[in-house]
């Protein structure tokens, strides 16, 4: 039977490399960031050392044990309530004095303690010489030098921790604690004895005594719990001593204590730490001279943000295109399992439900990954903290301060970790205000919506500015909302903030990729679970109940459209060079239509497909042999040559395009036209009329009928009924019921919006790629509506996960309700105004 698991708590200042050591010890992959407050919850891992199981708990980084913020509460409660066997305090030894403050408090607690002097390589490189042995003697605790990211010293660290836990009593007895001087110390000792007497000699007595003298509220509550009988007396005694000390020392006891602790540290350090050169911040300071400059800093920040979005969009385009093609090919491969043109519920579920939904969301993975990569880079280099500095003045105007800005920036990735990151804010009012406005930061899940809509409605040159503008509108609204909140329900003075600026560092590529991947994986997982589920539900809701009796006879309408087409074609006879009443041309076109019908029932490569072409060829040959067959052949050849040229032009680019490819295609097309004009002007005129007028008319008529039929089916379905129920509400914003249904889906998760639009628009069609969807959107809506859709999804209805985490973190359903209702109301009013005003100006 092996010994029971040892519990080792890791504590340390933010940025001391705690999480890196935790990961190295346990093989975990926790996120490590270069700004305060990355670890907001305690995290556990296990490892074995010398045959013993070690339970290692990573506590949030704290500067002290006085709970000001949630993470300090988490750390302190763990130390008190779970009583770890040994505490390992991790210190950034390039910043020793500051980091030792927490150590002095741990010494006062009287827990078995081991200090890990982390980043000792960096400290050495920066000219610090630390006499570790001497310092260890002065403090009475074992000290191990470590280099977290290289894994150096970790074995020794665990050795020391296990040793300290074996001989706890001796370990604690050897510790030196700060002495508060002749004026104060006797009172502390006296109080400690009283506490020890009341509690029966439990641990933490000196700490409790100090805290009672300070008048710490949390400690008073704890004392009441620990010994309900003597608590009032102890508290009164603490208060009396506190007042006495304040009278003697001229300052409140907690400040005197903090001062003495720093004195104790600096005493120990002057004897053991020598600094050969002051180099630690040299490079960082030089960078900050620009990035944190009073005037230049803000424009640089704005430009950086712009760059992030530009890269997200421009670079993401390429792999996105591959994914689109991949999903289109997958859709077709699946469709081929069934005979072409057949109806099958399962096929529809797979293609219109799963591929259109999940594929639609996964397609945007490259964009999302790039955005996450950029955010990870800003976090890990240390720029985030500078952004807080740069934004402080602006944030101050809206009643928040720079520190609130870090959660807001994280909100660009995802609202959920952003809301968790508000834990670093000490004041509850600041925290609530920040939480309320975080959903206005456009998160990664909203990116697919913009990435779908922007290219659908706006020319290439406008795309990046448009995306930037949407993000900016979110920020601007957040500003207004925060100001309003601070003026109304969350009124109160801003608490000033003090925050450490970590030195810049170049994050290792592996770390960046890991962080990017962790968050992207969440996105992929969401696509595979929530979005898959929602897609299937939405597909079912768009498919059932099925309509069997149509309001309109579509078959007859189609026949009428075809007849109209053939009649118009007959009018070309004269130009083609046929007698006016000749049926030759009409027969040829009818043959083509029949071939298409035949082909629509078979996949290319199947016998039926080939047979349809062969039948048409035979018919053509027969027609060509009749009288006037030569003229017919000339017309068909001219038409096909023109059509091929036009297709090439379309592929090469749009009108006014100046790319080489387009110019070449244009020249080739002109040559074809000139040659035809010289040889057979009549056939050219007929071909042009056919291609520009007669055939497009048929296509438009047929696709309009198909759309009408689809709309009829959808209106009949569950989703159509819901959407139409909402339509009167949405119409003032320019939205129809199709957008309405997509918005309903977006409440579950924002990305579902894209998936749902894909489903609504692709019903009855074969695997629609994003490009087809964009074309359909362009046909159905104006750019103004496109903009309104983005605006509405930006502001309205934070997703389900955000609502839940707000509820939990704000500890109140009403805050969640306020966030949800308030944002939706703002979205409605604002989108309505934009749409109506936009319509006035065309």
């Amino acid at each position: 039977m092996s010994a029971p698991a040892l519990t080792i708590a890791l504590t340390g200042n933010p940025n001391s490399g705690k999480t890196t050591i935790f990961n190295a010890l346990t093989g975990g992959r926790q996120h490590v960031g270069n700004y305060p407050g990355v670890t907001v919850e305690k995290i556990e891992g296990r490892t074995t050392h010398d045959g013993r199981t070690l339970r290692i708990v990573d506590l949030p980084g704290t500067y002290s044990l006085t709970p000001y913020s949630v993470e300090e509460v988490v750390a302190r409660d763990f130390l008190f309530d779970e009583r770890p066997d040994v505490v390992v305090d991790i210190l950034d030894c390039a910043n020793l004095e500051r980091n030792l403050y927490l150590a002095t408090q741990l010494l006062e607690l009287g827990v078995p303690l081991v200090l890990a002097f982390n980043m000792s390589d960096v400290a050495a490189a920066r000219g610090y010489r630390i006499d570790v042995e001497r310092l260890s003697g002065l403090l009475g605790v074992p000290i191990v030098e470590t280099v977290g990211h290289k894994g150096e010293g970790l074995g020794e660290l665990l050795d020391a921790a296990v040793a300290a836990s074996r001989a706890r009593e001796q370990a604690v007895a050897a510790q030196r604690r700060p002495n508060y001087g002749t004026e104060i110390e006797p009172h502390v000792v006296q109080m400690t004895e009283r506490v020890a007497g009341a509690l029966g000699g439990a641990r933490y007595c000196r700490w409790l005594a100090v805290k009672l003298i300070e008048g710490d509220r949390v400690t008073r509550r704890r004392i009441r719990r620990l010994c309900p009988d003597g608590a009032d007396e102890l508290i009164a005694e603490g208060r009396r001593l506190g007042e006495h000390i304040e009278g003697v020392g001229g300052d409140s006891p907690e400040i005197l204590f903090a001062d003495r602790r720093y004195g104790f540290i600096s005493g120990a350090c002057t004897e053991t730490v020598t600094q050969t050169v002051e180099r630690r911040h040299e490079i960082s300071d030089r960078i900050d001279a620009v990035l944190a400059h009073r005037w230049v800093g803000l424009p640089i920040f704005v430009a950086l943000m712009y760059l992030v979005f530009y890269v997200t969009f421009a670079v993401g385009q390429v792999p996105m295109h591959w994914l689109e093609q991949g999903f289109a090919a997958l859709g077709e491969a699946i469709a081929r399992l069934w005979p072409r043109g057949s109806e099958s519920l399962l096929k529809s579920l797979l293609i219109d439900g799963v591929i259109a939904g999940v594929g639609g969301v996964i397609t945007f993975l490259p964009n999302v990954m790039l955005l996450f990569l950029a955010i990870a880079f800003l976090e890990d280099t240390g720029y985030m903290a500078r952004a807080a500095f740069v934004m402080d003045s602006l944030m101050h105007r809206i009643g928040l301060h720079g520190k609130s800005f870090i959660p807001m920036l994280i909100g660009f990735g995802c609202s959920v970790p952003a809301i968790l990151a508000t834990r670093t804010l000490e004041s509850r009012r600041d925290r609530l205000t920040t939480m309320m406005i975080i959903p206005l930061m456009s998160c990664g899940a909203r990116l697919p919506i913009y990435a779908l809509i922007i290219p659908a409605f706006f020319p290439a040159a406008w795309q990046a500015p448009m995306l930037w503008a949407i993000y900016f509108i979110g920020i601007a609204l957040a500003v207004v909302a925060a100001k309003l909140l601070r003026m109304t329900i969350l009124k109160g003075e801003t608490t000033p903030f003090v925050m450490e600026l970590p030195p810049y560092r170049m994050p290792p590529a592996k770390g960046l990729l890991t962080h990017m991947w962790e968050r992207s994986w969440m996105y992929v997982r969401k696509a595979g679970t929530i979005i898959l589920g929602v897609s299937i539900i939405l597909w079912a809701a768009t498919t059932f109940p099925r309509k069997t009796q149509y309001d309109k006879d579509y078959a007859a309408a189609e026949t009428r459209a075809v007849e109209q087409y053939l009649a118009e074609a007959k009018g070309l006879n004269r130009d083609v060079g046929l007698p006016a009443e000749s049926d030759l041309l009409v027969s040829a076109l009818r043959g083509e239509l029949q071939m298409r019908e035949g082909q629509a029932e078979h996949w290319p490569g199947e016998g039926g497909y080939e047979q349809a072409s062969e039948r048409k060829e035979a018919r053509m040959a027969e027609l060509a042999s009749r009288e006037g067959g030569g003229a017919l052949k000339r017309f068909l050849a001219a038409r096909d040559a023109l059509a091929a040229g036009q297709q090439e032009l379309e592929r090469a680019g749009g009108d006014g395009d100046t790319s080489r490819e387009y110019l070449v295609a244009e020249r080739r097309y002109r040559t074809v036209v000139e040659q035809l004009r010289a040889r057979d002007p009549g056939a050219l005129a007929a071909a042009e009329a056919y291609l520009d007028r007669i055939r497009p008319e048929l296509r438009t008529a047929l696709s309009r009928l198909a759309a009408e039929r689809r709309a009829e089916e959808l209106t009949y379905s569950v989703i159509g009924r819901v959407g139409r129920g909402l339509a009167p509400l949405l119409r003032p914003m320019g939205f129809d019921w199709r957008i309405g249904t997509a918005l309903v889906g977006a409440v579950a998760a924002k990305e579902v919006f894209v998936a749902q639009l894909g489903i609504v628009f692709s019903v009855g069609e074969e695997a629609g790629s994003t490009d087809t969807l964009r074309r359909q959107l362009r046909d159905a809506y104006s750019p103004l509506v496109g903009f309104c859709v983005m605006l509405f999804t930006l502001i309205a209805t934070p997703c389900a996960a955000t609502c839940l985490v707000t509820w939990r973190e704000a500890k109140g359903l009403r805050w969640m309700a306020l966030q949800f209702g308030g944002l939706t109301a703002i979205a409605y009013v604002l989108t309505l105004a934009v749409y109506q005003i936009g319509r006035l100006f065309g």
Partner: protein
Amino acid sequence: MPLGLARIGQEVMLVAVHGGRGFLHRMAEMGLTPGVRFRVMSRGVPGPYIVSIKGMRLVLGRGLVHRMLVKPVEEPPSP
């Protein structure tokens, strides 16, 4: 003088901080106790400040500008 009057590059000594008891305690725990010396590294207008204290860089939010009283420290003659 209030911190707001300190120049960039100037070394100052903290004389007093105004504020509630909890706030003062927090400042003290960050090492900002009366008597501590620090150097102003950078500042916005009218705040925030970046100061160098005990070998680290701290951002002092804009709200602190008028709450902190400092006095200039003479530069020690360079050896």
